[in-house]
């Protein structure tokens, strides 16, 4: 009988360590390779096509899902009201895997293959920074909803805008007085070890210094870390406030382990809600957060003084009074950030209509029309609140909320003013050629 299966072939039965390593290397290589991408062609030139660079997978996936829901709701509202300049709007979605290299590929694909009018929707700052050059090369306007300071720093290029959410530098500057006055003067910072975290690392110390408070320790944690107790001994004993801002899938572990470490004997906590975005604040192990404070871009829980616009926005996106998906209380939204998608799409609508935008040949006009914008009034198009826009640095400035955890809910206790967050522009995009 022929040994078809190779059962008795001794040379085949032992697997050398070299082969094993080859397999491991191949596995690692594959894990890094860009994923399979869908190709689709424009069916018609009629609708305005917005390329949506979405964190559908990777560490930003929880945000991505809610960015998608919010954007879909905004596009529906815009289309129901007649679209942009009478044309329907269509979102073309590509997953960037929350990865900078893939982000740039996605932007190229939107520009060259889908031929979308603009690119929109990126959150994670390293993806924005990685994708911005591709947007500049393709001369395609790139509207991000990222919160990072990179757009306003004027280190990117003229095609990148952030008109829907305030940048971190401004947020920190506007909240520092409250932190110094109400939480404590000796602050230890815990932040993710990448671009977004560095904004916090770089802008909090000077902002607190101006208020007579000090950052006494800075602890950077890799965004893919899954256990955190090992970092906590680095927190100095004299710390009065722990300022935490974490992102990624392990945020709940971070907060829980902080609770196990300190128990009720904890310093004051001031966190960016990023540390608990998409996480139920009533999850087991989070009881110790009671009485601590969080930054929120837009409040997760419905507040007694919510405007009609805020209520309409929440209903359109489909979140209940607790900030969870209607019908699924466990599906908690990323309310503090996702409003930026809604508002950015309305800014795009306004700018396109101002520019008399017809198609990709008018992209330069769209850039100039966006730069000419000055203010966004609070209302159905801007439910989070009023904003000013600085066309030179492509950044908007709005109000920030400081919320206290009380009885398992987040209650807004302080709202900053737009003026609190204004700073000297670091440059001027409008001097760059189009």
């Amino acid at each position, binding site marked *: 009988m022929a040994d078809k299966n190779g059962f008795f072939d001794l040379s085949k039965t032992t697997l050398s360590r070299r082969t094993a390593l080859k397999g491991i290397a191949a596995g690692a290589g594959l894990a890094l390779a860009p994923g399979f991408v869908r190709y689709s062609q424009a069916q018609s030139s009629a609708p305005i096509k917005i390329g949506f660079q979405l964190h559908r997978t990777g560490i930003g996936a929880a945000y991505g899902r809610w960015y998608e829901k919010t954007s879909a709701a905004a596009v529906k509202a815009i289309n129901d009201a007649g679209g942009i300049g009478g044309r329907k709007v269509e979102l073309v979605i590509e997953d960037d895997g929350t990865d900078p290299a893939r982000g740039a590929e996605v932007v190229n694909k939107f520009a060259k293959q889908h031929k979308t009018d603009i690119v929109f929707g990126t959150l994670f700052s390293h993806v924005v920074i990685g994708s911005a050059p591709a947007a500049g090369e393709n001369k395609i306007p790139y509207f991000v909803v990222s919160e990072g300071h990179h757009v306003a720093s004027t280190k990117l290029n003229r095609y990148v805008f952030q008109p829907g959410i305030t940048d971190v530098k401004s947020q920190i500057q506007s909240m520092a007085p409250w932190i110094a006055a109400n939480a404590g003067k000796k602050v230890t910072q815990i932040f993710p070890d990448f671009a977004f975290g560095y904004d916090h690392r770089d802008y909090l110390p000077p902002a607190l210094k101006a208020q007579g408070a000090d950052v006494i320790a800075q602890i950077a944690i890799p965004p893919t870390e899954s256990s955190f107790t*090992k970092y906590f001994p680095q927190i100095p004993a004299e710390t009065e406030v722990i300022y935490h801002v974490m992102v990624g899938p392990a945020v709940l572990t971070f907060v829980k382990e902080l609770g196990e470490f300190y128990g009720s004997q904890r310093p004051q906590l001031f966190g960016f809600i990023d540390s608990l975005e998409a996480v139920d604040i009533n999850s087991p192990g989070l009881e110790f957060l009671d009485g601590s404070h969080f930054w929120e871009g837009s409040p997760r829980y419905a507040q007694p003084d919510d405007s009609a616009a805020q209520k309409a926005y929440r209903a359109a996106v489909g979140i209940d009074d607790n900030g969870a998906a209607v019908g699924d209380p466990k599906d908690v939204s990323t309310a503090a950030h996702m409003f930026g998608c809604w508002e950015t799409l309305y800014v795009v609508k306004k700018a396109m209509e101002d520019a008399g935008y017809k198609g990709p040949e008018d992209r330069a006009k769209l850039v100039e029309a966006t730069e000419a914008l000055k203010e966004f009034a609070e209302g159905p198009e801007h439910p989070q609140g009023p904003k000013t826009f600085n066309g030179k640095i492509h950044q908007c400035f709005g109000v920030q909320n400081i919320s206290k955890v009380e009885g398992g809910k987040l209650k807004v206790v302080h709202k900053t003013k737009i003026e609190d967050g204004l700073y000297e522009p670091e440059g001027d995009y409008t001097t760059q050629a189009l």
Partner: protein
Amino acid sequence: MHFGPHLLLAALEGLVTSAVLALTALGLSLVFGVMRVVNVAHGEFFMLGAVLAWAVSTAISGHPAIGFVAALVIAPLLVGLVALIAERLVLRRLHYNPEGTIVATIGMLYIIQQLALTFYGPEARPVEPPFSYRILLPWFGYSGYKLSVVAASAILLVITWLVLTRTKIGLIMRATQYDRETAQAFGIPVERVYAGVFAVGAMLAAIAAVLIVPISQAHYLMGQDPLLLSFIVVIIGGLGSLRGTVVAAVLIGLSDGIVSMFFSPTLAKIIATLVVAMVLVFRPQGLFGTTPR
């Protein structure tokens, strides 16, 4: 914090890492030792265990301990079943060819991961620990559950060792590992042993995941780190050696805990990788491995 308590905390954290790592790596080592299959999808069985633990514990109401115990039983069984099906449909058809199975398990990795993303979603979801006792030390608080993970893992390791050395099943497995042809000649149903070992390997990873999931949530990408660390442990300990796996897991876990606490977590990873390189250069068969015949 003073040096003493600091070191204690580092050691505790390291022990928890070791405990979970030892179980996961043992599964990988067993599959390699007996079947000579490098299971790249091992981390995904780990992830699947955590995800199923979430599903089971949320489906069962009442005291969290009931849900957790149910998850501890049901999740590994389901993962074992998935592994069994994968073994039947994929590995057996490749005749356990070493190169072929590597590629096939890479494929399985992606299939399982994307199915989890599709049906479970991108969120990290918590599982309530069966009890939430906080041990209050004079210098810091520590989760009592974390310590119980170490104990549970130690018990499971002892059971595995007893099964391998004291039972007939263990004897059959060891015989198959030692010499497949001779074992087959003596009437051992090698294919069934392979199927069983593959399922048990996956189940060990799943048990480790159920134990860890109340500490760190279930997430569809959580299989990557354990896979990498398991490979490191198995290479250091010697492919196919139970004792080596456990020793290497404790070594890597403790050094990870202590180095990352006193220096930086990145340095801990650098050291672990360096140790792998050194072992490969100076003792290619691993600390306790035997040279391939």
